[in-house]
Each structure stands twice: as C-alpha cells, then as structure tokens.
C-alpha cells in the first residue's frame, strides 16, 4: 500500500503561513467569515445606506453560508495530499494522546467535541422565546381566471395613457398610499405597525417580475384571497373587489408602475 502513495511534490503553498499551521488558519478563516456575516453585513447595510438600522443576517441564511464556507474549507484542505496531511496531523495527534509530559495540555482539545455537542443540544432543548420562523412564498401561482385578463389600457400611448395614469395616481394615493407610501416604497404612515411590511414597488423583485395580471389579482382579492401556501393570515391587504371597479384597478396598476419607475414583465410570446 505504502508504495502506491505518491511522493508529494514540494508545495509553494501548503497553507502554512507565519509559523501557523493550516488547521489554525482554517479555523481563523471560518471564524472570520462568521464574524463578517454576523457583524460585517449588518454594518455594511447601514454603511451603504440601504437600511437605517443594522440588518442582521437571518439564521437560515447564516446556516447556508456557514455550510458553504465549511465545504469550501474542506475542499481546499483536502484537494492536495500534503495539505491534507498537514491539516490532519494536529487532529490525529490530539487523538493519539501520548504518555508523558504535557499530557493535561494535550488532552484539552479533546474537550472541544463534547462541549460543541453540549452547546448544540442546549440550544435545541432549552425553551427559547423565538417565535416559529414564518416562511412565505412571495409569488403564489396566479389563478387561471386572472391569467386570461387583459389590461384594457395597455395599448394606449402618449397623452391618452398619461391621462389614465393620472387618474390611477389619484386612486393610488387615496387607497394604497396609507400602507404602500406616497412613492410606492412600502413605507406609508400605516406600515410601521404591520409585521408583514407592505410591498415595496420600487424593489426590482416585486411588481417588476410579474405580469400585470398578477397585481390585478392581488388588488382585487387581497390578503384574504391568497392561497394557503402564501400565509394569508399575515397580510393586511384589503380585497378591493367590492369597492374598486376593474377598470380603476388597471388604472392603479399603471400608476403603480409609473410611480415606482418599473415595467411589468411581458409574456415573451412575440419571440416565437
């Protein structure tokens, strides 16, 4: 067996820098990534001005990123044999505790695994005051009957279109502004008290990614009309069907896009 082991070529880069072995460096890197995610990103959000308060990285994202980082570290250290041995040596040595001097000190690393296990189980079994995570699907499927609708004003151009949009703006500011805000940024006067924040129309991931029929459905049927997958209990969106005529809803949708400066998604049928 041993004869089959390749003679490792001398590496320029066995991961050992400044007297520190590759294992400590891996640990430092992972801790660094953790710190970057835990503190760097919230702080960055304030720095670049996308958020007034530090925006913490949610637990779920944290888990994904740390798993990725761990995988990356593993890939790096094990992709080359010399590096892999350099990485494993301290671990193996920790396990094969020799007799003799400094034994107590060398036993210390062995405490790490039980402590880690204790910490994880503690987090699992101890009661926490966290409310259960609330997943939410942003774009539940558009019901068929809405997919077939057509915006009666979609074909208008120029001044006619402007006139329709102006009517839409008035309707929007009257009915939608309290929650979605004067600028459509989802921060109207009533937004502060809502846990599920009203949608920010200027965000490229919202109305810009759906066809026009989609907001029509949402406006007409409201939060109550959402299917179960989209957790209707949380949405304060009214069902406007009894109060706003379909034509007026189309006007509002056109105004929304105007206010937010976005374009609705278009079906790509023309390309075929």
């Amino acid at each position, binding site marked *: 067996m041993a004869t*089959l082991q*390749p003679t*490792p*070529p001398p*590496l*320029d*880069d066995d991961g050992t820098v400044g007297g520190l072995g590759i294992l400590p460096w891996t640990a430092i890197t992972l801790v660094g990534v953790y710190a970057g995610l835990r503190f760097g*990103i919230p702080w*960055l*959000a304030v720095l670049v001005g996308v*958020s007034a308060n530090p*925006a913490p*990285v*949610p637990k*779920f*994202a944290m888990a994904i990123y740390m798993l*990725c*980082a761990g995988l*990356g570290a593993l*890939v*790096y250290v*094990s*992709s*080359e*044999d010399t590096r892999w041995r350099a990485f494993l040596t301290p671990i193996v040595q920790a396990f094969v505790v020799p007799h003799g001097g400094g034994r107590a000190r060398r036993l210390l690393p062995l405490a790490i695994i039980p402590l880690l296990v204790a910490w994880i189980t503690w987090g699992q079994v101890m009661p926490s005051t966290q*409310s*259960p*995570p*609330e*997943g*939410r*699907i*942003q*774009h*539940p*499927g*558009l019901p*068929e009957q809405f*997919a077939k609708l057509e915006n009666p004003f979609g074909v208008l151009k120029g001044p006619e279109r402007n006139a329709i949009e102006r009517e839409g703006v008035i309707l929007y500011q009257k009915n939608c502004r309290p929650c979605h805000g004067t600028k459509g940024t*989802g921060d109207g006067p009533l937004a502060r008290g809502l846990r599920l*924040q009203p949608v*920010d129309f*200027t*965000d*490229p*991931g919202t109305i*810009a*990614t*759906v*066809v026009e029929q989609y907001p029509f459905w949402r406006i007409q049927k409201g939060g109550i009309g959402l299917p179960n*997958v989209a957790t209707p209990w949380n949405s304060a969106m009214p069902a406007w069907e009894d109060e706003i005529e379909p034509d007026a809803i189309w006007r509002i949708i056109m105004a929304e896009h105007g206010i937010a*400066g*976005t*374009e609705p*998604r*278009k*079906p*790509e049928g*023309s390309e*075929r």
Partner: protein
Amino acid sequence: MVSPEARRLRSTTYKLFATAFVGLAAGLLVPESLWAVQGGDALSRIDDVRTFFGLNPRNTVWFVAQLHLLFAAFVLGVPIFAVIVEFIGWRTGDERYDRLAHEFTKLLSAAFATTAALGGLLAFTLFGLYPRFANYFVGIFAPSMYVYAIFFFLETAALYLYYSSWERLRARKGLHICLGVLLNVVGTSLVFIGNAWTSFMMTPVRVADDGEFLGTTLEAVMNPLWMPLNIHRLLGNIVFGGFVVGAYAAVKFLSSTTPERRAHYDWMGYVGNFIGLAAMIPIPFAGYYLGREIYSASPVMGNNMMGGAFSWTFIMQALLVGLLYIIGNYYLWSGMNRIPGSERYQKYIKYFNVILIVCVAIWLTPRNLPLSGSEQLALGGQVHPILGYFGLMAAKNAVVNFIILATFASFLLYRRANKTDLVPISQQGRGAKAVVVGAGLACLLILGWYAVELFTLAPESMDLAPEKAVWFKLPAVLLVVTMTTVVVCVGLALRDRGHVAQALYCGVVATASVGVLGVYGFFVMAAANPFLRQIAVAQWLILITALILVTAIDVVLFRGAGSRGAIRWGHVTARSQYALISLCVIIVLTMGLMGFIRSGLRENWHIYGVMRDTSAWAFTPSNAEMAWMVGMITLVFLAAVTFLFWMVGLTGKEFAPAAATGEPVP
C-alpha cells in the same frame, strides 16, 4: 473464461429480450389506440384514474417514469460517450480509448433491455392507472408511437451492428465510428419522440376549448417546449453518461490492488469526469432557454416555477448543480497530485475555490428568506436589504456565468500543469495561426452580431417607452469593447504572448459579463425589466467567446510543448474517487428533481390547460415528499446499474492492462 460463441449467444439473448419488450410495448399501444378511436360510446365508461393494489397511482407512475427516464438517459448518454471516446482513440491512436469505448458498449445491450422493459411497464401503468388520460393521449400521438416502435427496432439493430462489428471494422475505424454516429442519431430521434409527448403535456397546441385536438400529430410534436427540452435533455444525458463512467471507474479503482489496474481506472475516471464536466458548461444556457420558453408559453407556469411553489425546489436544484461544479473542480485539483509540475499552480486553487463557494452561496440564497418574527421586525420587512439582491435573477445569472468561467479556467490550469518548453506560436505552422485567427473571427462574428442587434433594437418591440432605449446602450458598448479585446488578444497570441492574451481575455470577460452586466442587471430589472433577457444573452455570448478563443489559444500554445514528466496515473487519492461517485449520485438526484419540477409545473393538470387531473392526488407534493421519492428512485436506479455492471463484468474477459503512460487528455 467464456468462449466468444457463448458470449455472442448471451448478447443475442439480451437482444431478444429487448425486442420482446419493445414488441410488447408497441403491441400494447396499438390495440388501445384502435379502441380509443372506435369506441366512442365506451369512452364514457372509462375511468379517470384507478388504483393498483391500493398503491398511490401518481407515485407509481412517477416512480416508473423516472426510472425509465434514467435508464433511457443511460442508453443514450453512454453511446454518445462511447463514440466520443472511440473518436478520440482513433485520432490520437491511443488504444486505451478504444478499449474503454468497447467496454461500455458491451454494457448497453443489457441496459437497453432494461430500458425497454421499463418503457413497457410505464405504458402498462399509464393505461392501467390513468386510462382516460392515456386514451386521449394516444388519440393525439398514435402515429408517433408507431414511429417510436420502428426506431426502437432500428436502435436495436444499430447497437448490434456497432457492437458486433467492432473487431471486424478495426481496420476501417472511420466506418465504425459512422456506425456509432448512426446509433446515436437513432437513439436521439427516439428520445426526441419521447420528449414530444412530455412537452406536449406542458404546452399543448391546437386544442379546442372543449378539449378536442385539432392539429396533426406533427404539430403536436413540434410544440413550443419540444426543442428546448430536447437540447436540455441531450446535454444532460452526455453529462450523465460521463459521470456514470466516472463512478464506475472510481468503484473499480477503489477495489483494485495492482498499480496497473489503478492506473487504468484512474485514467478512465478522468475521461468520464472530463466529458461530463465539459458537457455541463452549456447546460445552464439550455436550462435558461427552456425556462424562457416555459415563461413564453405560460407566464403563470413560469411564475409558479421561479417565484411560486417551486422556487424552493430550485434552491435545492442550485444546491445540487453547485455541488456538481464544486466537486468536479475538486476532482481536477485532486488530480493535479499525479502531475509533475502541478505544484507551480497549486497556489491559484484557493482563488478558484473562493470564487466557486461565494458564487454557489449567492446562487443558494432565496429571495424570501425564512425569518423568525423578531428577525422580520429587525429587518423591517421580508427581504434582507443586502442579501435580498442575491435572490434576484440578475445575481443568479452573474454567478452562474462566473462559476462556468472559473471551472473553465480551473481546467486550463490542470491542462498546463506539467507543460514546459513551449513552442512559440510564431514558429508554428500556418495552421496553428489559422486556428487562433479563426477562433477570433468566430468570436467577432458572435459578438458583432449581437452588438448590432442591440444597437438596432427598438424599445417598442418590447413594449418599452422610446426613452428606455438608453438602457440598451451599455451592453452594446460592452460587446464592442469585448470585440476590441478579441482583436488585441489574437494579436498578442500571434506575437507569442499567449498567456497574457488568455489572462487578459478571461479578465475582460469576467469584468464585462459578471461584474458590469451582473450589476447592471439590477438597474435593468427595475427600470426596463423586459430588457433583462437581452442582458442575459449578452452575458452568455461574451462567456461563450471566452470558451472559444481561450481554448483555441490554449490548444495552439501548448502544441508540442515539453513535459515535466509523465503523468503518474493511479497516483490519486481515494477521496477524489469518492468525489467521482458523488458526482454520479448527484447527477441522478438532479435529474430526478428536475423531472419533478417539469412534471409538477402542470399542477393539477394532466395536460396543462386541457385535461385536469381530477383524482385525489392532483396536488403538488411537498419538497420533503419529493426528496424521498427522488432519493428512493436514485437508490433503486444505482442498484440496478450496479447489478448490470456486475452482470456484464462476469461475462467480460479479465482486464489486461496496457502500460499506464501517456499524455493528459485531450
């Protein structure tokens, strides 16, 4: 030891089996279809759905169909692989390739029989469990089903011919390869017909409001999703073929005890991984094309796919595909162990690693993160102000491009690991220069064509206001900049600055396609959303030119280069062999998962918008249920394939290793 006669007999038996099953399947289709046409009255008595021994009919069909599909992919992917490998063997004169191709073709007859059996079973299950649907379907596709049966016979014949003439045509390799190509053409046609049925279920055409089909069978075959699905599946099958071979080699390697056998299987695993990884590069493009066509056919289906119930399934898909790239790269890096001289390039690995991991992490980030109540309050909304951007299409496009580019560059690194003493391009013949210039011209053509497209693009054609035309300018200008770089790089390469040219071009492409257009995508999303698809195309065209030009330069650059020593085949870690196995497992899982998405997109429809599934199983299963089903299918499939390998291994003669030397391929 088994005599050649006995072996031939046995392989004939397989073929008989296969034929019998095909006949059975076809025979089954014929009377059913005749019945469907004649029995107008009987129709009203046909059940919508039946159960079979209390089994969940939906899951039964799911299981059988997916298993059949995997075997079909196997019998399609492996011959493609075999012919490619045989061709390489022919051109390089390396015997090993030829033997490898032969070894795998041997597998095919058994696999072929299994596929046919499963196909028959699938037909049985469909007619048995969903009779009304099956009837309707046969009414539309009956003619294509005859064609299918005929092609099945042709495939059997072609396979037999290809396999049995191996030795006889050794002297006329070209002819033999033509036979192989013929086999693949037939096989591909076969799969195309099957794809027509599948895609029709998603995008039916020419169907009246009351469900009556008005078109011809040909029209039904040529439905909008047919071609995108064909391309996607064809590429997927090659990847699959490559990775299955890789895994086979890995298992053999791990159980080998002699250095010669190890060397052989190490080499075989390398070839499998190389072909799989190479075919993986265009797959995201094909996937994007397919996705776009789904959006065009039905924006509702598209929204369900990317934003609705399946958005999380796509996160899982990103996880699997991301892992494929990471592990594929890992295998390459591990393989540098066996190459003398590779230590010079070890230090770059960490950069590629970081790029891959960061890109995959971004790819994995969902738009709507699951939040606990207090996280939601702390963020003041459902979307994280920074990470939320990672969930958008623009970010995903950018990182996928970057992953492909990094994988490509990582491979270049591998290729040059033991190269030394380059022959300057200026001293090479005219042919070498022509290759570089030709590749440059091709790139200019691609980029120029799209730049013109963008410059002349009318905003009205996308229902955009005329002033939005300003958004088209930057990508167009970027394309022109890239064209200039092409010229510069070709010039540099011809003046013996090949390395510089490669680095420059990769750098420019990364900046343009990933950096600039990636970020620009966010602005476009908000301001001129319909234009985003052009951005994606521009990004990918730029990337493709990098693949073309840099490969061309590379080929010429290292032509006749000296070596730092022979590659020590067999000197590779066991870990890397497990990487090969995991590639195979993951590709099977990915195919199962994609099958779920494709089929699940129809929601509660058998045929989208035409025939509703009114059974109790007309719902979209949760991702957990999907994972269990796909996981079990994967295990069953891999067990079956292992069994096949084992069975064929018994009949094959003992491996006689050749001297394990040679160049890294290709």
